[in-house]
């Protein structure tokens, strides 16, 4: 356009380089925390630095972390899904029913994933289509989904999954690398690429920061939200396959309290609970930090509830300390 009266001054792209920014980031802080805890553990327990033990320790977080990746996207977009634990229970129950009808392993897996997707779609329709607030919708579906499991199962349990089904939760790919760890790693990469390298991911950030303006920018906000709920349902379905395979049985109380642990991982990973910011590498690191803390304390036979105090303190501390410091500085 030739006419512009002044060419306008040139605005630089960036003032701080991405590398400098990364160094000061939350992820860097988490990485330091993770390494510190790793060293502390190695120092405190002679059993810690054993590959098999470390491998066993990953079971403490792999399933929750798989869900946490999808949840991270959901929370970045300004929504939340508190029904994930219940979705796991319902998906597991559905697999149990399918097994009762003699379904082979591939069908079982398909049923688990399909149930997860269906639950995600149900949440997604209520939130995206009918515009209901996700926190209350999923508090409702959390009771509904698990309630259905209770109706189906009552005081019974499904057991006797086929031997080949055990592979997902108990199998090893090579040496100490478990199948679950591989699924965890693949989903970490997929979700990191999805959030940070695709235009879909960009729209997730835009929606999280200002959903109205995103809609006014030609983004199909409701569709993105729906997809995010679907993804969360799908990941819950995958987690259900892993957990059911690992436990070898289904009870309606399976995965109780998962939702809060998943949210804890996501928040510790630096995702703003208010939406709009956060990264997948942060979530991966947070999963490791939590896994290391619980495993390290477990080796010292610290009761679980004392660990959860530590996790609570860690959650508040890691978020509060930087704020406190910057507050004291001013």
């Amino acid at each position: 356009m030739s006419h512009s009266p002044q060419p306008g001054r040139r605005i630089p792209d960036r003032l701080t380089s991405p590398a400098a920014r990364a160094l000061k980031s939350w992820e860097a802080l988490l990485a330091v925390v993770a390494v510190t805890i790793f060293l502390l553990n190695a120092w405190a327990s002679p059993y810690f630095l054993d590959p098999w033990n470390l491998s066993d320790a990953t079971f403490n977080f792999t399933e929750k972390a798989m869900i946490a990746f999808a949840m991270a996207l959901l929370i970045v977009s300004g929504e939340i899904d508190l029904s994930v634990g219940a979705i796991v229970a319902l998906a597991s129950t559905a697999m149990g029913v399918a097994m009762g009808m003699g379904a082979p392993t591939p069908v079982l897996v398909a049923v688990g994933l399909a149930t997860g997707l269906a639950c995600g779609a149900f949440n997604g329709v209520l939130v995206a289509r009918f515009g209901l607030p996700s926190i209350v919708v999923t508090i409702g579906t959390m009771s509904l989904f698990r309630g259905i499991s209770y109706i189906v199962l009552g005081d019974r349990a499904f057991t006797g999954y086929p031997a080949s089904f055990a592979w997902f939760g108990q199998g090893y790919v090579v040496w100490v690398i478990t199948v679950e760890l591989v699924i965890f790693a693949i989903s970490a990469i997929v979700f990191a690429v999805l959030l940070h390298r695709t235009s879909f991911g960009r729209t997730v950030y835009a929606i999280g920061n200002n959903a109205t303006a995103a809609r006014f920018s030609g983004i199909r906000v409701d569709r993105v939200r729906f997809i995010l709920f679907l993804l969360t349902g799908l990941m819950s379905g995958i987690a259900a396959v892993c957990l059911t395979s690992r436990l070898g049985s289904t009870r309606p109380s399976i995965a109780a309290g998962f939702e809060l642990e998943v949210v804890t991982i996501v928040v510790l990973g630096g995702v703003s609970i208010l939406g709009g910011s956060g990264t997948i590498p942060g979530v991966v690191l947070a999963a490791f930090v939590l896994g290391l803390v619980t495993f390290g304390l477990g080796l010292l036979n610290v009761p679980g509830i004392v660990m959860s105090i530590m996790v609570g303190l860690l959650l508040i501390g890691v978020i509060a300390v930087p704020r406190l410091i910057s507050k004291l500085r001013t």
Partner: protein
Amino acid sequence: MSILKSREVVLGGVIVLLLAAIASRFPGFVAPANLARVFTDTSPLILLALGQMAVILTKCIDLSVAANLALCGMVAALMDGMGVPMPVILATVVVMGAGLGAINGALVWGLGIPSIVVTLGTMTIYRGSIFLLTEGAWINAHQMSDAFKAVPRQVIGGLPVMAWIAVAAIAGVAVLMTRTPLGRAFYAVGGNPHAAVYTGISVGRTQFAAFVLAGALAGLTGYLWVARYAVAYVDIAGGFELDVVAACVIGGIAIAGGAGTVAGAVMGALFLGIIKNALPVVGISPFWQMAISGAAILAAIAFNARRQGPGRIILKRAEVRT
């Protein structure tokens, strides 16, 4: 006004219908004595819902109320074991509950950490503290003094003291919400935090006050709970925080803050209380209970969303019609 009023009226209607349906299968359920029992049984939920309502009004959420309740209840039981007199115990639980609420409030106010994160953390910390206090041991009925167990059960005018405390709290919170500057500040801060600053209301301090109120009510309820069920251990009222939030949601307290009434919160709690109490009575398998309350929550929010009136109207013709 009319829209909001009718929301409570409709919820009241639903509760009456529910009672009628139960009565058709089991008339004894609506006998005054039994209704009084249901109300008493729902009192802890009502007390916590009143506090949670204040918190939700200010755009926050308190997931730590049940843990706060359990910790204060345990402390009350321990104090009773040491022979501390009842008035001191009562004062302590209220102050301690308020103090625990104040910790939440201070983190939200002072450091601006979102309430869901703060209370997710303090929820595990408070509950874990009970374990640290007792190493997980239970305190059972036989270890509690009779005076300690008697207070909530004492019947005055047909209702136990526990129920009267709930009635008093409903009245107190209702006056607080509608007739005091603090009560209006709860609504203002949740309705438009930005505007609240411009009107000289401190958002953080108001949220702090809401957490303190919720904490104090939780502390008091902690004592009542422990004394009524005559047992104290780490896990009491586990997961109760979600029932409390559900009661608020069913009662039409807007989760985004700024809207909702005391009547709504109380009826939301009663709705859940009636369902919980009625299921075993009418002979529906207890396994259905969870699914039913989930469906009720979904129905309630769908209903509340539908009740939102039309926004602005430009056409004169349309204005006349509505």
